[in-house]
């Protein structure tokens, strides 16, 4: 089976310290944490230096991570596992959990993406957030996020992973609501937190299930014992519960509603958390837990179907958006759907490859959109943009590179990633997945083409668009670097020996193979589809030959439906939120006010009534009291006399 564990004793020896490149692994999460602590407590005094501090610490973390991975690469494939024990975290009876870090091929890939893309986004933020009065606080949150994200991917057991999982959720909440004085932003933050919490709760139950069945949360022990311990039903239950967490965190249908609203946060946050890293944590979780998922006959098909549905749903919804960032948000949801499709077909390496490629081009697109928004003075409506390529040449051209990569035009990163997944669908006898996935690819080319043509081509459609200006070098430099990454990330898959898939193989196993249409034919179809999608949108939005208003009127009410994301939000509002509120109101005003309070009031009223009756005996006449004594004394005497 794929998703193998390492044989006992094969892990690389190492300690906790500064001795070797691997021993310094703990520094990878520790450096961003240090930045967060400094910026949180002393940030205001640092001024602009707060941003540089945060950026440099994440960059240093990237360097340490790269050194550790380099050292890991020095070992043969089957021995590339390094576990670093920091301290005993929980120890109750026979159950113990350590704060352990685990470096293997999967976590190595993740930490390089997180710290690498993360440090570029930090650099960009120095320019983007320059005018913000809470500049240092922003970097404190951003560093804290990187810390938790690194704990999530480096954790050697589910509890450390869960610590990071909840931590990134918290940072996501703090950063979406960074400008919390606007009600919309504060509500978006709450929505994101509560929606993902639904998934997190499922995941927590899954973890409890694992403890119950295995008595441990350590990855190696759990995966090693999974085959012998779990029945089909237990494996399905655990896998689906864990997948529930992934659905929430990675904004898959039906818990996707928070991500488009999360765009209320500052754009670097959207790039870092809601495109490149946090939302991919769900993919990471499923890849990591693959040995459990594979024991179940149901779990992986469910993942596949959810991924497919999400891809198509979000791909269509993205076509109808008018806000530049919301297009990218739906695009992210759709691309994550592809990753889950890959996972669902057991092609974990393909999912990880897509994850890396996506991190580059989607971070680039988000940062580019941030630069556009900056240049347009906080305008996000694409209908008011146009012709920006001439006014913002660097942003525009790098954005186009990202867009072409996303659309899947060869030879950029997105092409290889998507091509691999679709080829797999074809070769493993899943024609429906292949056809629908290809439609999804067409959709992604179309929505990103629409975005590019509306924003950067044609005539400026507002005064702000006419006066738009290029952003500062501090912001355009990361764009250039990411554009190089987005263009070249495909090279990770060029040669079989040097490929990411080969690197990941010891942990996640081989990508499945099969028979189907020839690979070159599939690649050609993929490339043609991408070009067709871009050409179609060029025809509609940039050629000037199509009357857009008339076209939209003809397909009415489709544009409005897509703009509202197929009205899923309103359906949740009517179907879930409104009944919940009505139920709460019923409980508060009837059950609580009349029932619970009524009972308490009845007890109180009864006592009052009894006391009211009893107090009539208290006349205040001393002599009647004396008479009562007398009669009482006689009565006692009489009783004693009778007894004698």
């Amino acid at each position, binding site marked *: 089976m794929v998703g193998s564990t390492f044989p006992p004793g094969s892990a690389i020896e190492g300690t906790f310290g500064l001795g070797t490149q691997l021993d310094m692994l703990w520094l990878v999460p520790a450096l961003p944490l240090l930045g967060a602590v400094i910026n949180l407590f002393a940030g205001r005094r640092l001024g602009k230096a707060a941003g540089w501090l945060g950026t440099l610490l994440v960059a240093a973390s990237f360097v340490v991570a790269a050194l550790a991975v380099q050292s890991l690469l020095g070992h043969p494939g089957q021995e590339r596992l390094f576990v670093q024990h920091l301290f005993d975290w929980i120890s109750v009876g026979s159950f113990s959990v350590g704060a352990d870090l685990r470096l293997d091929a999967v976590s190595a890939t993740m930490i390089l993406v997180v710290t690498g893309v993360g440090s570029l986004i930090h650099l960009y933020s120095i320019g983007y957030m320059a005018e913000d009065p809470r500049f240092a606080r922003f970097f404190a949150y951003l560093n804290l996020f990187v810390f938790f994200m690194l704990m999530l991917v480096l954790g050697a057991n589910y509890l450390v992973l869960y610590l990071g999982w909840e931590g990134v959720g918290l940072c996501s909440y703090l950063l979406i609501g960074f400008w919390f004085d606007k009600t919309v932003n504060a509500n978006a933050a709450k929505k994101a937190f509560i929606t993902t919490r639904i998934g997190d709760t499922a995941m927590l139950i899954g973890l409890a299930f694992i403890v119950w069945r295995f008595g441990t949360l350590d990855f190696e022990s759990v995966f090693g014992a999974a085959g012998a311990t779990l029945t089909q039903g237990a494996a399905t239950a655990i896998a689906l519960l864990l997948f529930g967490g992934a659905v929430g965190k990675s904004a898959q249908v039906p818990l996707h509603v928070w991500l488009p609203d999360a765009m209320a946060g500052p754009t670097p946050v959207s790039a870092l958390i809601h495109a490149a890293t946090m939302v991919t944590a769900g993919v990471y979780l499923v890849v990591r837990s693959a040995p459990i998922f594979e024991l179940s006959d149901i779990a992986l098909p469910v993942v596949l179907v959810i991924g497919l549905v999400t891809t198509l749903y979000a791909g269509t919804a993205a076509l109808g958006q008018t806000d530049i960032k919301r297009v990218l948000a739906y695009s992210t949801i759709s691309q994550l759907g592809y990753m889950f499709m890959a996972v669902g077909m057991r092609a974990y390496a393909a999912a990880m490859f897509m994850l890396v490629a996506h991190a580059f081009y989607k971070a680039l697109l988000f940062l580019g959109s941030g630069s556009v928004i900056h240049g347009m003075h906080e305008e996000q409506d694409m209908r008011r943009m146009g012709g920006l390529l001439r006014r913002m040449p660097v942003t525009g051209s790098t954005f186009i590179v990202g867009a072409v990569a996303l659309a899947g035009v060869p030879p950029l990163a997105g092409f290889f990633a998507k091509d691999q997944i679709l080829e797999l669908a074809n070769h493993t006898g899943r024609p429906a997945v292949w056809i629908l996935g290809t439609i999804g690819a067409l959709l992604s080319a179309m929505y990103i083409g629409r975005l590019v043509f509306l924003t950067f081509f044609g005539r400026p459609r507002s005064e702000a668009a006419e006066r738009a200006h290029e952003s500062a070098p501090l912001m355009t430099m990361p764009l250039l670097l990411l554009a190089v990454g987005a263009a070249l990330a495909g090279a990770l898959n060029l040669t079989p020996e040097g490929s990411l898939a080969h690197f990941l193989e010891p942990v996640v196993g081989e990508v499945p193979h099969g028979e189907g249409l020839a690979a070159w034919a599939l690649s050609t179809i993929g490339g043609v589809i991408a070009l067709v999608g871009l050409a179609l949108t060029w025809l509609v939005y940039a050629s000037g030959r199509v009357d857009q208003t008339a076209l939209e009127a003809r397909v009415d009410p489709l544009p409005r439906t897509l703009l509202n994301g197929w009205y899923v939000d309103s359906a949740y509002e009517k179907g879930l939120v409104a009944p919940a509120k009505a139920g709460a109101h019923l409980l508060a005003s009837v059950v609580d006010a009349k029932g619970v309070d009524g009972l308490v009031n009845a007890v109180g009223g009864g006592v009052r009534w009894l006391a009211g009756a009893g107090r009539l005996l208290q*006349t205040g*006449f*001393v002599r009647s009291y004396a*008479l009562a004594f*007398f009669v009482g004394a006689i009565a006692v005497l009489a009783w004693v006399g009778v007894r004698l």
Partner: protein
Amino acid sequence: MRTPIAYFVVLSAILFSLGTLGVLLRKNALLIFMSIELQLNAVNLSLVAFSRMHNELDGQVLAFFSMVVAAAEVVVGLAIIVAVYRRRQTIDVDQARELRW
């Protein structure tokens, strides 16, 4: 020849009844007080009489105790009566009936 015990008991009962009637019927706090003393002394009388009948001193000792307690009670009671009088220029117990519903 000794006086028969019945004489003492009857006298004691008469005194006690007088005291009780006084407590129940009088309105003047001082007179109620005096009636209570009468009750106490009626009991003391029977205590001493029974003590003599049994040729034991227990009853007489108990009578002394009861006198001491009565003296203490007089001190407290009279102080209250004086205080009540100073406050409301009357010691009619029917007038002092604030402690009720």
